[in-house]
C-alpha cells in the first residue's frame, strides 16, 4: 500500500454502521420512489394474466430461508395473481425448506380469497432428486409425488384427478434460489416436455438466465427484490418488495459512492507515493 493516507486504516465497522443506517432510515421514513416494470417481468405477468379462470398452473418453490427476503415476495405476488384470476395451483418443492415457507405465504392469501385446499390449490411438499424428479413429473406427477406435503395420498385430492403429468399444467412458475432450480427446469421440462416456464430467481442468479429469456425457453424472469416489486406493482398489491425498494436504492447509491471514493483515495495515494519516490531518488 502506498504511503500517505492508508485506505485500510478505516475500520470496516464504520462501513457496517453506514450500511445499517442506510437500510433502516428509508424503511422507517419511506420515500415512495416510483417502480418501473422491465420487459421480462411484464411478459411473465402477461402470460399468467392471459390464462382463463380454472386453468391449472404449477408453482415450483425451490428456496430456503437465506433467499426468502428476495423470493418470498415473488411467491406471494404470483399466488395472489393466480388466486385473483381463479387459477388453480399445484405446488411442488425440490428444496427441503420450501414447503413451510410456501405455506406461510399461502396462509393469509387462502383466507383473503376463500380458497379451498385440494380443490383450488395443493401443496405436494418436498421431493429430493432435482432434475430426475422434474423428469419424473414429465411422465407422471402423481407417480413422482404419491402424497402431498401433509401425507394425504394424492388419489384422495380432487385437484390431482385432473393433473397427470406436466402437459396438464398450462404454465410453471419456478421460484428458484439455485440448484436444483430454474436451470434444471429449463433443461428437463422445457426442452423435453414443452412446458411454458416463467421464473423468479435471486438477483445473484438472474444474469445467468438471460440467454433462456432471449431464446424463449423462459417466458419471463423476475430478478431479485426489484423483480418481485415489479410483479407486485403489476398485480396491484405493493407489499414487502415494494417497501424495500427505497432502502435498496439508498444502499446502492452508498455502495457506488464507496467504490468511487475508494478509487479516488487509491489514485491520490498512488500519485503522492510516486511523487515522494521521485523526490527520494533525486
Amino acid at each position, binding site marked *: 500500500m502506498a504511503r500517505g493516507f492508508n485506505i485500510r486504516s478505516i475500520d470496516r*465497522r464504520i462501513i*457496517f454502521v453506514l*450500511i445499517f443506517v442506510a*437500510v*433502516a432510515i428509508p*424503511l*422507517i421514513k419511506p420515500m415512495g420512489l416510483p417502480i418501473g416494470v422491465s420487459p421480462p417481468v411484464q411478459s411473465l405477468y402477461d402470460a399468467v394474466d392471459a390464462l382463463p379462470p380454472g386453468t391449472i398452473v404449477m408453482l415450483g418453490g425451490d428456496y430456503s430461508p*437465506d*433467499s*426468502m*427476503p*428476495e423470493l418470498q415476495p415473488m411467491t406471494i405476488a404470483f399466488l395472489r395473481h393466480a388466486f385473483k384470476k381463479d387459477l388453480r395451483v399445484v405446488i411442488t418443492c425440490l428444496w*427441503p*425448506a420450501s*414447503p413451510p415457507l410456501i405455506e406461510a405465504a399461502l396462509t393469509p392469501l387462502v383466507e383473503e380469497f376463500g380458497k379451498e385446499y385440494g380443490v383450488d390449490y395443493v401443496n405436494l*411438499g*418436498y*421431493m*429430493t432428486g432435482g*432434475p*430426475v424428479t422434474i*423428469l419424473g413429473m414429465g411422465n407422471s406427477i402423481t407417480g413422482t*409425488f*404419491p*402424497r402431498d*406435503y401433509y*401425507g394425504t*395420498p394424492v*388419489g384422495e385430492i380432487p385437484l390431482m384427478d385432473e393433473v397427470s403429468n406436466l402437459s396438464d399444467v398450462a404454465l410453471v412458475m419456478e421460484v428458484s434460489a439455485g440448484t436444483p432450480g430454474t436451470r*434444471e427446469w*429449463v*433443461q*428437463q421440462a*422445457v*426442452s*423435453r416436455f414443452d412446458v411454458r416456464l416463467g421464473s423468479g430467481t*435471486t*438477483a*445473484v442468479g*438472474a*444474469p*445467468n438466465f438471460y*440467454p*433462456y429469456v*432471449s*431464446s*424463449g*425457453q423462459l417466458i419471463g424472469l423476475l*430478478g*431479485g*427484490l*426489484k423483480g418481485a416489486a415489479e410483479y407486485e406493482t403489476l398485480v396491484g398489491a405493493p407489499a*414487502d418488495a415494494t*417497501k*424495500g425498494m427505497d*432502502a*435498496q436504492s439508498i*444502499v*446502492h447509491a452508498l*455502495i457506488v459512492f464507496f467504490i468511487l471514493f475508494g478509487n479516488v483515495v487509491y489514485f491520490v495515494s498512488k500519485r503522492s507515493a510516486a511523487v515522494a519516490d521521485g523526490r527520494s531518488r533525486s
Partner: protein
Amino acid sequence: MSWLQEFFTGAPGTTTAVVWGTWVGALLTLCIYSFLYKDNPFYKFAESLFVGIGAAYWLAILYHNTLKPKLFVALFPGDSGEPVLWYRVFPGILAIFMLLRFFPKLSWLSRWALAFIVGMYAAVNLTGFAQADFVEQIYATMTTPLTGGGVLSFILNLSAVVGVVAVLLYFFFSKEHKGAMGVAAKIGILYLMVAFGASFGYTVMGRVSLLIGRMTFLLRDWLHVID
C-alpha cells in the same frame, strides 16, 4: 404505552406462540449480527443451533415427504389402500448399501449405490445440457432476427450474435490467440467484463435485499416501529 404493550405482547390478535417466536427470532438475529463486531460466543451459539436444527429438519422432511411415501408405504401400504410396489425392495437395498459407508469392512458396497446415482445423473444431465444449453442456444443465436426491427434493434441483435461467437472463441484454447483470433478473443473479454460487472451489480442487489428482509423483521415484527 400502546407501543410498549405491542412490543411485549405483539399486535392485536397475535397469539402467544407467535409473540414468543418473534422474540426468539429477534434475539437469534441479534446473536448472528454480533459477529459484525467480532466473533463471539453468542454468534457461535446461534451457529450451533442453525446446524442442528437444519440437519434435523432436513432429515424429518426427507422421511415424511420422500422416504415414507416412496419406500416405506410402497412396500408396506397397510390399510392406506395404496398398491404394494414390491420392486421398491431394490432401491431399498441400494439405500442400505449407501449407508454401509459408515462400516469400513462393508463400505465398498456403497459404491454400488453411488454408481447407480452417478450413472443416472450423468445421462440426465448429458441430455439436458445438450438440448437446452447447447442445441437450443445455437438455434436461438442463429435465428436472431436481424431485420424488421429498426436500426437500433439491428445493432443490438447483431452485437449479441457477435458477442456469443467472440466469447466462444475466447474460450477456445486449441489455437493461439493471435491475429484475427486474438482480436475476436479480445472482443470476447470485453463482453465477459460487461457481464461480470452486471453480475456484480446484481449480486450487490441480492445481498442488500437479504439485509432489508432482516431489518424489516426487526423493525416491523419485533419493534413495531414500521407498518
